[in-house]
């Protein structure tokens, strides 16, 4: 089945770049070794580590500082599109409250008295003029305000959603690692030109570890609605899918990778969903 799809896709005329997602076979060590290499915690057993360019935002033109190794369990996990969809739906619905309201027979004004006697008139028997059978009567099983739609997606579904989204971004060349988010100017045109020059797609999400960002990028991206900044603790599947490109700082990469790997190799897996379970062991 897969062979069928790949055969068809090979015939389509899309300009895809030739480098694959797996590690480069040629040991090209001629790039500058001024950047500190990354050591992977939890050495991967079944997949090769992936490599990604470390870039810089100092100039509008593309500037690659060197290669970094990233963990395949986080950035080359199975791209579960259905799990990504579940995460996106959950993010939309868990805080949604429906305020739609219809009046039922006891809420509609009037209808307390029996309209006519039970027997003798030759008419159908009725108890109230607001019963659901009547025009103007109450609605049966209609929406009742406020109705929350809160539910918790299982912890490991949410974790799989994050790894799938990051893998999808990395596989489609929409993930970039940057040494720092300091820009040379506070002009918004600088960011716009940079994004355009590097073909980073119209919408970009910049992620750093802390919630206090450098002044330059904060002011530059303040007025641009489609280029946003976010701390690492706010990283979510919806935002990753909404924005075309994801740009992480090296510190954010370390933070995210270590957190996700910790959860993937956790000892006590029951405790994560314990507080959302009621009356269960």
């Amino acid at each position, binding site marked *: 089945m*897969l062979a069928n*799809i*790949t055969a068809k*896709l*090979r015939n*389509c005329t*899309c300009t*895809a*770049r030739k480098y*694959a*997602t*797996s590690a480069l076979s040629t040991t090209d060590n001629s790039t500058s070794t001024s950047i500190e290499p990354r050591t992977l915690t939890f050495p991967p057993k*079944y*997949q090769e580590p992936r490599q990604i360019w470390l870039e810089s935002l100092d100039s509008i033109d593309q500037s690659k500082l060197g290669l970094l190794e990233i963990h395949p369990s986080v950035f*080359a*996990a*199975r*791209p579960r*599109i*259905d799990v*990504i*969809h*579940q995460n*996106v*739906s959950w993010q939309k619905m868990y805080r949604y409250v429906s305020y739609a309201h219809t009046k039922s027979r006891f809420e509609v004004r009037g209808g307390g008295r029996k309209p006519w006697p039970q027997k003798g008139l030759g008419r159908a028997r009725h108890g109230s003029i607001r019963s659901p059978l009547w025009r103007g009567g109450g609605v049966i099983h209609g929406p009742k305000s406020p109705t929350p739609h809160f539910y918790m997606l299982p912890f490991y579904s949410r974790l799989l959603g994050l790894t799938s989204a990051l*893998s*999808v971004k990395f*596989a*489609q*060349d*929409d993930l970039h690692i940057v040494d720092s988010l300091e820009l040379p100017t506070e002009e918004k045109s600088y960011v716009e030109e940079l994004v355009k020059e590097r073909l980073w*797609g119209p919408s970009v999400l910049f992620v750093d570890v802390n919630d206090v960002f450098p002044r330059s990028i904060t002011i530059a991206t303040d007025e641009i609605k489609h280029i946003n900044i976010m701390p690492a603790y706010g990283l979510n599947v*919806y935002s990753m*899918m*909404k924005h*075309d490109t994801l740009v992480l700082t090296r510190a954010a990469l370390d933070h995210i990778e270590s957190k996700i790997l910790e959860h993937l190799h956790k*000892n*006590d*897996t*029951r405790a994560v969903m314990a507080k959302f379970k009621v009356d269960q*062991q």
Partner: protein
Amino acid sequence: MSNTTEKALSLLRYLPRVCLANIRDNPGAKKKSRRGRAQHGGDYHGAGNKGSNQRQNFMRIGYETGNNPFYLRFPHEPYYKGHHLKRQYPPLSLLDLQKLIDTNRIDTSRPIDLVTILNTGLYKLFPDQHHFGVQLTDEGADIFAAKINLEVQWASEQVIAAVEKAGGVITTAYYDPHSLQAMVNTKSFFERGIPIPRRMMPPPDAIEYYSNPGNRGYLSDPEKISEERLVLAQKYGYTLPKLDSRILEMLNETKDPRQIFYGLHPGWVVNLKDKVILKPLEEELKEFYAL
């Protein structure tokens, strides 16, 4: 050799960008619950015909429309009287224990007690459901080969023989439910900031078990225990191995009958944030916690 993950990721390079507009759930994942219409699912909509059921006014479970129902016909017999209050010991087999040791989940260079077994995350205990500790079963008694200092709450003769034949030491000890609540989740217990409680004595029907040297009870005479070790070796036909001198200190490490954790006395308050231990100096408290 590529696997399906690699294939899927390389496929993605030729497909359009994954965004909010082109993702969906797997077919059949969401089943729309709609009211049936027409020939199948329509008409009575699964509620039957007339009566209390179609009118959604169901009778209580077990009600048999008036006659004496089954669940009330027979008088109460005392076969299971008090079963809900009996002490329960969820089992752990010797094979499981050996697997935990082989996969490095349990450190054999330290004494193994209930806290160690619970900390592996693979054995769960619920003290509020009358669980009083771990019971060691004899599945894996023939393959058990680990020199450990083991402390459980109940162990049969075969299990004791298996552990001692391997060159280990086994003890049975009692923990009251209040102490068990502290042991089940030690991190959250320390975070509560309350002093480590002192372990209570076993109830009257358990004192005999824990004072019996044949059961390696923690309240029995240690000399009698060494006698019983010889007796058991003769009974099961193995030569009692000499305890390994390199780990002799570890094998002899025991807890006081009032102690819950190794090395930590009752009455102490552990501060995980500042990494200090607070010890009481009041005479009354010291006397109570027997420090």
